[in-house]
C-alpha cells in the first residue's frame, strides 16, 4: 500500500462531497457499523468505512476511482445502521456522480447500466426492461448478458415488446428540471453534535 501524503489532502473535495450529499463527513468516527451491515462488501475494493475515511482525508483520486462506490446497491443498510446518522447512501451516490464528472469511473458497465435505466425511465415514465437491456448490451458489447433469462420471463409474461408508458411526461419533467437546475443543494445540519 502506498504512503498517503497528508499534505496532499484536498479540502475542496471534502466540502464538495459534504455540500452535494448534505452529510457531515467529519461526524464519522470509524466504528465500522456500515461495513458490518453492507451486503455487497465482499465485492468491494474498499469497505464502506474506508471510503468514508478517504473522503475525510481528502483523497479525491482514490475515492472517485474505487469500485466500491459503483458496486454499492444503495440498499441503505449502512445509513440505517450509522450511529452518527450519516446517510452513507447519499454519500456513495454523490461520489458516483463526481466520479462520472471527473472521468474516473472504474466500473464502466455499471455506469452504462445506470444510464440506460435512467434513459428508459425518462422516456417512458417507468423502466421498459427489453429496451434498457438492448441499450445496455449495445453500449457495452455484452450481447449475451442474461439473455438466457429472456425466454423464461417471456413465458411468464414478464417482458413486453412495447413500452407501457406512465403518466404524460411528468417524469421527463423531473429529469428536465434536474438538467436545468442541477441537484438540489442540501443544507448541512447546523448542529455539530
Amino acid at each position, binding site marked *: 500500500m502506498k504512503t498517503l501524503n497528508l499534505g496532499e489532502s484536498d479540502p475542496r473535495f471534502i466540502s464538495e462531497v459534504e455540500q452535494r450529499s448534505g452529510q457531515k463527513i467529519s*461526524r464519522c*468516527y*470509524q*466504528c*465500522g*457499523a*456500515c*461495513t*458490518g*451491515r*453492507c451486503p455487497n*462488501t*465482499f465485492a468491494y475494493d*474498499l*469497505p464502506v*468505512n*474506508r471510503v468514508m475515511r478517504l473522503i475525510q482525508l481528502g483523497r479525491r483520486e482514490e475515492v472517485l476511482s474505487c469500485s466500491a462506490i459503483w458496486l454499492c446497491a444503495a440498499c441503505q443498510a449502512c445509513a440505517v*445502521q*450509522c*450511529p*452518527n*446518522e450519516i446517510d452513507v447512501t447519499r454519500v456513495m451516490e454523490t461520489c458516483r456522480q463526481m466520479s462520472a464528472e471527473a472521468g474516473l469511473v472504474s466500473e464502466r458497465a455499471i455506469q452504462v447500466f445506470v444510464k440506460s435505466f435512467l434513459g428508459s425511465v425518462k422516456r417512458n415514465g417507468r423502466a421498459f426492461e427489453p429496451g434498457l437491456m438492448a441499450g445496455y448490451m449495445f453500449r457495452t458489447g455484452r450481447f449475451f448478458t442474461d439473455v438466457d433469462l429472456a425466454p423464461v420471463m417471456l413465458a411468464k409474461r414478464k417482458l413486453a415488446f412495447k413500452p407501457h408508458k406512465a403518466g404524460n411526461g411528468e417524469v421527463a419533467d423531473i429529469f428536465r428540471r434536474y438538467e436545468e437546475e442541477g441537484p438540489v443543494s442540501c443544507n448541512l445540519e447546523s448542529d455539530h*453534535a
Partner: protein
Amino acid sequence: MRIGVFVCHCGSNIAATVDPAAVAMAADSMPEVAYATDLMYACAEPGQKAIVEAIGEYRLTGVVVASCSPRMHEPTFRKTVERAGLNPYLFEMANIREHVSWIGKDKEANTRKATDLVRMAVEKLRRDAPLHSRRFPVTKRVLVIGGGIAGIQAALDCAEGGLDVVLVEKEATIGGKMAKLDKTFPTVDCSSCILGPKMVDVAQHPRITLHALSEVEELSGFVGNFKAKIRKKAPYVDWNLCTGCGACLAKCPSKKATDRFNEETGLTTAITIPFPQAIPKKAHINPEFCRHFMTGKCGVCAKICPAKAIRFEQEDEIVVEEVGAVIAATGYDLADWSGYDYLGGGRFPDVITGLQYERLLSASGPTGGHVVRPSDGREPKTVVFIQCVASRDPSKGRPSCSGFCCMYTAKQAVLTRDHCPDSKVHVFYMDVRAPGKMYDEFIRRAVDEYGVDYIRGRVSQIFRKGERYVVRGADTLAGAQVEVEADLVVLAVGAQAAHGAEKLAERLHISYDDQGFFMEGHPKLRPMETNTAGVFLAGACQGPKDIPSSVAQGSGAAAKALCLFAKGVLENDPQIANVRPGRCVACGKCVKTCPFGALNIVEARGRRTAEVVETVCKGCGICTATCPQGAIQLQHSTDNQILAEVNALCRF
C-alpha cells in the same frame, strides 16, 4: 454616590475583541462615576489590590467591575469591596466576556456594547441599597440519599466527623450496584469482600440512622434547616423483630417473584432477603407475588416465623427528619436498550447485559458462580462482549461515553477465561478508554495473559443460528466484515441516571442534564456542590463513575457537609423578596406562585398582609412579577433598578 468602574482585560479573553481603555474612558463621564480604569486581570491579586486602593484613594462608595459572568466572580469581588470597607451589595458586575468578547469579533461594535452594559450596571448601582445578611443556626445532621458505595462512604465520613446521618435507601438493602458485582477492576478482588465491612460499619455506627425500602418524598426548608419527608414502604415484616434467619424464605410457596437484586437472571420467593450479606438483613414481602395478598390464603411465613414478625396489615409510614445538609448519591441504572433491534433488543435469552453477567459470575448469584447460558444452562464455548451499547450513539440520543464499560468488559473477559478455560472470548470495541491507575496495564493483561481477542469495530447484527448466535460486525483494522458464532453475548450497556432521578431532582430543587444526571455547581471547580446551597452530590448520580471515583466523591461531599457545619451559624443571601405592607392587599397571589413556600399571609397591626420567610426565600422574583400591587420588591433587583437599566440601554 462615588462610583468606581474597573474594566478587565482578562488577558486577551476580553481585550482581543473589546477596547477596555475606551470602555473605561466612556464610563468616566457616566453619572456619579468618580473613577474609571482598566485592569489586566481584575480577579487576580494585583487587580483586587488596585480596586481596594482606588476605593480608599478616591473615597468610592460603590464599585462596578466589567469582566466575566457574575456566576464566575461576583463572590470574589463582593469580598474585595467588603475588605475595603464597603457594603458588599454596593457592587455591580457587567458581563463583557461571555456576553460580548467571546461571541463577537467586531471590536468597535463590541466596545459599544460593553460600554452599554457598563452604563446599565452604573445606573443599577446608583439605586442599590446596602443589604445585610441574617445569621441563623444550623441543624448538624446530614441526609444521605442512596446507599450505594458513594452514599455509604459519604455517610461513614460524615458520621466519623461527628455529624448525625440519616441514610435513605430505596431498595431493601444498601450496597447499590457494587453489591451486585462479582469482582472489581483492575485488581480483580471480590466486590462484596471489600464492600461488606463498610456496609456493616453503616449498620453499627451509632451516628447513622438507616431507612431502607424508603424514599424522600419532599424536601422543604433551606441550607442548615431542611425538613425531609421520608416514605418508609411497608415490608410487611416487623423489622424490629425479624432476625433475618431465613426460615420464611425456605418455606414460601410463591417462588416465581422477580429477582431485582439478581437483575432478573433468576427467580426468588415472594418473601425475600436480597442477598446473604444484606444490610439490614431483614425479610420483606413483594405483594405482587405473595399468595396472601393475591388470594387471601397462605400465610405460611407467618406460621413459620420464629420471631412472629410477619405483619400483612402493615402500611407505609411517613417520617420527617430535620437535617442541615443533603447528599444525593442515587447512582445510575443501565440505559434502556430494548430499542436496539439489531442486537435482539432483549428477545434473545443468551444476549444479556454486563450487570446480568456479574450475577452469573457471582458465587451468591442464581447459578452459584457457574457461567452458563440462561437459555439451556450449558457452559458457553464462545463468549462475545460488545462495548458501547447505548453509549457514544447520537442516533439513539445517547452521545456520551459511559466511562467504565471498557474496564468492566475487560474484567468480565478475564473472569470468563478463568471460569471456562476452554472458552474463546471476543470483545468488539470502538476505542478502549482506560485512563485510570493500572487500568491500561489491566487491558494489556486481558490480551497478553488471558488471550482475549479484541476486535476494533461495531457490531451490526446478531441473529440466531440453531442454538447459537451469529454476531456480525466489522474489523476496521483488517478492513473487513467479520462474523463469529457465539453461545453467549454480553452487552456493555451504557449508564444513565437512576430511574426517578429527575423527580428527585425536582424535589431537591436541583437541576439535571438531558440524561438525568444531576448538575454540579461547576463542571471543574464545584463537582460536589449543586446550585442549591446545602445540597451536595456524590457518585454516579452526577455522571457515570467507577468505584474509586465514587468513593472519592463520597468523601468529598462529606467534607463539604463538614465544612458547612464547622461554622455553626450560617448567613442568608439578602437578595430576597421584601413586602411593603402599606401597598399589600393580601390577595394571596404571591403565596400561590412561590415555588418554595416562602410567603404567608399574616395578621400585622390589625390588617392582613403577605410576609416573606427570609430564610426560605431564594430570591427568584416570581412573586415580584405576580403582585398586582407592586407591593413586593426583590431586594437588589427592584422594579426601579430594572427600569433604570432598560432606560440606560434604550437612550436613543
